[in-house]
Every structure is written in structure tokens, then in C-alpha cells.
């Protein structure tokens, strides 16, 4: 399957992240799955007129297009003219190019939260009238409309994240190429369920601190960041702590809060990103699927049962108390 990759209102970070794919030969992994590039702005030799001719041939139906990947938000401003991004060399708004190309594509993939929902590009007053391909924040619609399906019958596949994990993009493209991504494989927001049906909390190295509500209080503390530091890992849909970033990383392993960047509207949480909003001392955003009364009861119980090791390490930047050494096997009768 051929892939055309277009960039608009974004930072290019999803492409930069994709190049961090865990592969000794990125290009070979791509082609081994039966994927080939029609054009990618960072990776292709073609420039200028060659590219415009390619886009025109796709638009005219002369060049088949299997997968259209869009990175970056659709900039509809000012006043819905799209003039905040005219594709270079064409004097035509990128939003018009994207509408035309999406109509011809077998599959349409929104790479990153900007292309999916608008993302950070739409934050605050949204001066540029940024939106996603099929969503405007949580509202279905966006550039292509709520009822859009591509030639394959799928809606826009929303590989949300800011940026996207290289594995999410590679797995999505490979699954499309191998006909292994169908509507049932997408969640209700159009995200591939292979990564969106999990929580960032799963596999978090701070889970023992979470169990005892032993919380970090300042940057570099090892404790759980849910209570004070704004962490949304218990609510955010992604596999960041089981499919690690850049070798052994994730946001929580890097010592900063998960801001739930795969979620529509994450850019405007209504509070400072690094602080947990609370009501009567209790965090407003409780873990997904957990009844509030039980959470409060368990939290107060576990806080009172916190071992000294966990309590002290939570507010240190390196473990100061090591686990006690004890035999874990059964005692022999003679002992």
C-alpha cells in the first residue's frame, strides 16, 4: 500500500518521533509490511513542482492513494478561508487539499492529537480555528464531517497522542497494509484499541507509591504524582508504561505528569497542567472505572498503612530506604 503524508498545523513532532521507531532499518521495516511512500515531506526526494503534480494526479483520480496520513491540525482561519496555511507553491488552502485527497484515499489516518482533534494547536481562544480531520475536540465533525468514511468504509483512524509513539503509527500502518484493522479494532473515538484500550497507569513504576497514596511533592520526587502533581495516568488511554518511549522512557518515568495527551481536549484541562485540582482535599479526577466512595475509603486506609520505606522514598529523588531482605520461601519444619 502506498502512503502519502501531509503536514499542516502542527510541529512535525509525530514524524520526528516516528523516526525513533525501534528498528535497525526503519525503511526496511516499512517496506517489509508492503508499505511504500508516495511522498513524505521529511523523507522523500521530490520537492516543489514534482509534488504538486503528484497531488493533482491523485485529485484527478489518475494516481491511486491507499493511505493518507495527516499530521497537524486543519487550520480553518481566518474566517474559514484557510489562509493561515496555503500549501507552498499552490496558493490553495491546505484544508482544501486535505478535503480533496481524503475523498480519494482508501484509508485516512490522523497522526497525532492535532490531526485527530485539533490538539494543542486549538488551545485557548483558538485563533487559527484549528480542528481535527473528523473531530473538533470531543465533538464529531471537524474538517470531513461526522459521517465521513474513506473508500475502505472506515472513519478517520485517530492515532492520537502528542506526539504519537512510533509504535502506534507503525502498527496502525502495518495493520492497514495487512488488512488487520477494522471498525471493531477502533474505540468509540476512532483510536486503534491496541493502544487505546489500556491506561498509562498500567506498568507505571510508581505503582507501589500509588497503592499507598505516598505522593510526590516537588519535581524529581519518586512518589505518585496523582495527588499533587497533576498526573492523569489512571485515566489516560494509552500503553505508555508497557510500550516504552525511546528505550526506557515514559512521562511518569521522566518524573512529570501524564497530561492525557491522547484524549480530545487535553490541551485545555481547566487547571495548570502540573497541579492536581482538588475538592475538599480530594483529587477531582479519580481513576477510571473506580467508584468514588471506595476510592476515598481505600485511600485513607492505605495512607495510614504506608510503610516507612515507601513514605520516605516518595519525597526523595533516589531511594533512601531499601526493601528489607527476607526469605520468601516456605520455612522448613526444623526452623
Amino acid at each position: 500500500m502506498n502512503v502519502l503524508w501531509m503536514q499542516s498545523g502542527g510541529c512535525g513532532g509525530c514524524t520526528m518521533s516516528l523516526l525513533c521507531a525501534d528498528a535497525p532499518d526503519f525503511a526496511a521495516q516499512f517496506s517489509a509490511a508492503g508499505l511504500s511512500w508516495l511522498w513524505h515531506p521529511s523523507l522523500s526526494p521530490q520537492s516543489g513542482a514534482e509534488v504538486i503534480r503528484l497531488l493533482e494526479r491523485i485529485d484527478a483520480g489518475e494516481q491511486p492513494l491507499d493511505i493518507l496520513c495527516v499530521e497537524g491540525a486543519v487550520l480553518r482561519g481566518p474566517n474559514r478561508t484557510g489562509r493561515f496555511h496555503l500549501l507552498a507553491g499552490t496558493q490553495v488552502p491546505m484544508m482544501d487539499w486535505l478535503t480533496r485527497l481524503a475523498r480519494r484515499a482508501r484509508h485516512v489516518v490522523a497522526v497525532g492529537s492535532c490531526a485527530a482533534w485539533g490538539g494543542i494547536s486549538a488551545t485557548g481562544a483558538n485563533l487559527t480555528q484549528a480542528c481535527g480531520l473528523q473531530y473538533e475536540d470531543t465533538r464529531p465533525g471537524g474538517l470531513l464531517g461526522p459521517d465521513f468514511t474513506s473508500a475502505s468504509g472506515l472513519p478517520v483512524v485517530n492515532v492520537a497522542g502528542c506526539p504519537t509513539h512510533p509504535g502506534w503509527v507503525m502498527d496502525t500502518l502495518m495493520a492497514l497494509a495487512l488488512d488487520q484493522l477494522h471498525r471493531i479494532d477502533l474505540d468509540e473515538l476512532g483510536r486503534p484499541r491496541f493502544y487505546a484500550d489500556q491506561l498509562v497507569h498500567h506498568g507505571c513504576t510508581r505503582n507501589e507509591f500509588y497503592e499507598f497514596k505516598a505522593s510526590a511533592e516537588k519535581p524529581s520526587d519518586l512518589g505518585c504524582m496523582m495527588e499533587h502533581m497533576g498526573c492523569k495516568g489512571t485515566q489516560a488511554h494509552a500503553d505508555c508504561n508497557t510500550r516504552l518511549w525511546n528505550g526506557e522512557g515514559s512521562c511518569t518515568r521522566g518524573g512529570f505528569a501524564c497530561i492525557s495527551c491522547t484524549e480530545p481536549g487535553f490541551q485545555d484541562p481547566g487547571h495548570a497542567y502540573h497541579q492536581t485540582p482538588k475538592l475538599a482535599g480530594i483529587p477531582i479526577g479519580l481513576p477510571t472505572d473506580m467508584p468514588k466512595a471506595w476510592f476515598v475509603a481505600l485511600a485513607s486506609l492505605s495512607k495510614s498503612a504506608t510503610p516507612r520505606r515507601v513514605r520516605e522514598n516518595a519525597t526523595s529523588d533516589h531511594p533512601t530506604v531499601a526493601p528489607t531482605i527476607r526469605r520468601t520461601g516456605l520455612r522448613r519444619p526444623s526452623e
Partner: protein
Amino acid sequence: MSPSPPPPAAAPDSPAGRRVIVGPFNRVEGDLEVRLTVAQGMVAAAEVNATMFRGFESMLVGRHPMDALTIVPRICGICSVSQSIAAARALADAAGIAPPPNGQRMHNLMIACENLADHLTHFYLFFMPDFARACYAHRPWHAEARKRYAALAEPEPGARSVAATAARARWFELMGLMGGRWPHTGSLVPSGSTRAVTASERLRLWAKLREMRGFLESHTFGAPLETVAALSDATALLAWADGDARRAQSDLALWLEIAQDLTLERLGRGAKQLMSYGAFAAPSGFGFSSGLFDLATQAVTPIPLSAITEDARSAWFDSATGPLHPSVGSTVPAPDKPGAYTWNKAPRLDGQVLEVGALARQAVDGHPLARALLQDGPATVFSRVVARLLETARILPLMERWVGALELGAPFAKPLPTFGRAHGVGLAEAARGALGHWLSIEDGRISHYQIIAPTSWNFSPRDSQGSPGALESALVGTPVDERASDDAHVAVQHVVRSFDPCMVCTVH
């Protein structure tokens, strides 16, 4: 399709010629259009159009100051950490704090990691594939260039491009450890690093540095980094390239052969002054020092920061107030403004056009090779690319030193400050040059934020005096073969890419 009426472009300020529009440019970060006036087979005048507006400065106003650390890295997927560092420094300046020594070392390690990776990305993925183009098929080095550097999206990508991509991905595992991920980390805060490093992690960092040293010494240079860093002038450089380095299949040596064959030392002549804010802050001074290098005097002077202005005369922004210092500047879109042709303002220092980037950093820092390359004239395609690779050879040993200096057990961060009413300036060096953030805070909220990105300087439009920006001038005289079709503008592409532009930063 419903094309909007094209906004009127500024009239060329040179004798009439054929108008040629080049775009979309690829293998630059973001979208770019260059409008050329071509006469007698060469560029007579150029206008650089940054084709997008994103509005980050206005997004930041009204937010909690710490929100900047989540928002500004997302200006750019390739200079993400550089943006974070500039914001962290501006906030630290506003709060009157500084990171502890370990925090400073982590800041330096992270931005150095990004700078080095960006130099690799530029050389192997963005710049060199142009020499694998069919228009060079008759040159003696072309077959080898194709074998090594054919673009990654080609059916048979170049072996060195593939190897560099793998080395880069492994290199970024440093970021996974130190900053959780790249791009868009949140680990860089004004009071230090949210990530401390343990003894075994420090060993792993050291091992990753050795791994990259291995790649650079076996592929990029074919020589120890110290040998490259010790080259003191063009003669020594070319003699080295012709001998040991060529035998070792050095990429730098092959590029020098290509550059000499195509006389790239005559192409893309830059500005009269080069500026670096100083890279890698140290307790006293910088790893690469700060200053303004003047070609005429060959001397470095301190930067009069108060003399920086942004001139929106040729940009689709309100410019009624005339050029303004970024501490009081504004970015209000005016998409119908007559005479405007880009979404980038024109930064000037004391009204002068500057060039920024690796060559500026190395010249300001006084490296003999960089100085020698600027002795007889301005920056060129040749010297910009040499300086980037020279800097690559110099960055890694600095990182080895900082990793060794991390003090285990000593703090990596202090508690976060509180923000009342304050102003702050944060300066940093992204791979492609000087990056500045100017902010004000009132009642604990950001009330003003202005950013001048490196490519804002290099790719600036004409200012109120009519002076073209650095690239606009550098393109004048570039040959354009009007008989050729698709590769007609390959020399133009070399000039543009030699600046390692980042358009997404430019159009913040």
C-alpha cells in the same frame, strides 16, 4: 477547489526577471515557499514565504506560567527541548532562581543530545539526499552518493542514511532515560530536572555516549572526534579529507569532495554579522560562548540584547507601531495587509541582518576552523555544513564530561518557585541557532509572551528599510537552469537547506 485570492506579494526590489515560485520545499521542518525573480540564468531577487500561522504567543497569554513548559515544546517537533530550555530559563529569570548544578548538567545534556541528533538528521536525511538526485548523474561521486544518501523514502534508501536513522533512534534513548521521551518532554523545569539519575543509569548514559562516538568515528568522520575538532583551517581540513578520511570512507570526506566539485564555497553567501546567545550554560559562562561576530573586524563583541527588534513590515501582522523589542512586541494577524508576503517577522539587531546557527556558534566561540572559513568572506553552503559537523565532533566530548560530573545523591531539582509579577528572558541555542523567549507575568498569569526563533532570523523578510533577510540575500546569484525541469532549482535547494531551517518554529 476554491483557491483564495493570492495575497499581493511585495514587488521585487531588483531588475525584472521571470518569476518562479518554488514550493512545497521538503526536507525542511515545516512548509516553505520561495519566490524567485530569475534573470540571465540566476536568481536576481528572492522572497521567502513562511506559509503558515499558528498563534502560540497568544495561546500562552492568560495561562499559569508553568503551562509554558507543556505548550512551548509543542511549537516544534525537532527543536522541542530547545524550546523547553528557553522557557525554563525565562521562568527562572522571572522567578530569580537557578537550577542546582545537577539540574544544569541535565539541561545541558538534553539540549546537547537534541542538537547533535538534529545535526545528524540534517546531514543524512535532509541535506545529502539532494546529491543523490538524477541531475548529478554525470558527476564522478554520484554513484557513491546515491549508494550512501538516497532519501529514506526511496525504494532503495542510502546505506548511510539508514545507518544514521538507526544510530539516531538509539541516541534518543538518552532522552528516554533523562527526559522520559523525545520530543515533548516535561522534565525540564526552571528549578532543575524532574528526573534524577542513579549510579547504574549514569553508566547506561555513558555507554550510549560511547555508542554514538563509535558511529561518528566509523561513519561520519572516519577519525577520532578529537582529530576533527583539532582541524584548524580549510587547508588542513581538505588535506585530512583527501588522505586518511577518504580511506576510512568518511562521510565528511565524501561531502568535501562533492562540495569542491560543485564549488559550494561560492554558493549562498550569508550576512555580515553572526550571533550566538551562547550554548550550554555553565557556572561561569557557556560551553560555546556568547557574542556577536563581525566579518569586517573579525572580532566578537557582547550582544546588545536591548537592540533586538522585530519588524513586521513585510509580514501579515499589524505593524502600525513599527519595529518593537520582543519584551513589548506583538503578533496580531493582518492577513490582508498590502505588501506583506510571509507569516514571519523580520528580527534585526540594531537594524542589522544577522545569521545564526552552528557556524555562528563556532565562530563566536573562536574555533580556529570556523574563523578560518569566515576569514575571506561570509558564510556559504560549504562553511555552514562544515561547521555543523565540526560542532558535532565537539559536542560529544562535552557530554562525556557532564555525565561524568553528575553528582549522585546531590539534588537534581529544587521546589518550584511561585510567580507574582515579573519579567523574564530565556535564551538558548537550538541546533539551527539563537532562540529567545521574552515573557511577563502578572497576578500569577502569563501576560505577555514573544518568541524569536532561529529561522525567524535567517529566513526573515524585508524590513522597513527594504533590507532583505539572510536567506533572501544568500539566494541572489544562485544559478537556476531553466532548461532542466524537476531538478531546476537544486542549487536553490542547497542554499535553503544549508541553513537547516525550522519553519514550524518560525511560524509559531
